[in-house]
């Protein structure tokens, strides 16, 4: 299923992505950041996603923009994952929400875009204290993805 997405921009390093959500609450700048990190000698990239707040000059993690375009936003974030891993085929991408509700949103994004995602990515979800290949309908607390 090819879900509608917003066009997005990326930085020269391809670690930062921006797009604009457009809806009843106006235009809201969304940012996706792939932060390089290392755990026990393994390099990976942490996916962070949030609303840019021009007034405070940083990401506002408490923002609930409610622009009635959730699916489009999630599809766009998924598209940045595909683009990022296309650029860096050996990169592992880790994602979890800052709250359980936001983690559920990531899960929904993967499930909704799985036809496209599964073509290119191997996705694992963390549940029951272990990593498992991603399956729809299972509640996970974190995700790891890598290019096939």
């Amino acid at each position: 299923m090819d879900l509608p997405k917003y066009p997005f921009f990326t930085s020269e390093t391809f670690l930062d992505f921006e797009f604009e959500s457009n809806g009843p609450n106006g235009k809201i700048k969304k940012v996706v950041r792939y932060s390089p990190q290392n755990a026990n000698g393994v390099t990976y990239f942490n996916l962070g996603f949030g609303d840019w707040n021009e007034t405070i000059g940083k990401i506002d993690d408490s923002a609930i923009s409610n622009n009635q375009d959730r699916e489009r936003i999630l599809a766009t974030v998924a598209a940045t994952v595909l683009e990022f891993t296309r650029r860096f085929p050996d990169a592992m991408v880790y994602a979890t929400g800052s709250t359980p509700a936001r983690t559920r949103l990531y899960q929904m994004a993967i499930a909704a875009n799985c036809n496209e995602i599964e073509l290119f990515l191997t996705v694992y979800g963390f549940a029951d204290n272990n990593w498992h290949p991603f399956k729809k309908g299972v509640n996970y607390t974190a995700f790891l993805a890598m290019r096939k």
Partner: protein
Amino acid sequence: MVFTRGISMPTKTKSGSESQVKRTAVRDYGNDPFFVKKAEKSKAFLEKNGFPEALLNRKKALKKA
């Protein structure tokens, strides 16, 4: 649609063909406190719980290639 912010110049796609992309300045958000905090939390989680064996093996295989 993907646009790389900066100056216009041809770039190679994965297939090897060239395409023009628009480039302007997307800033580096690496120092944003939200992203820094999230990355630190992810490190703590993965140091405690590890990575899937299959993904680690794939990474090793790609490194050898």
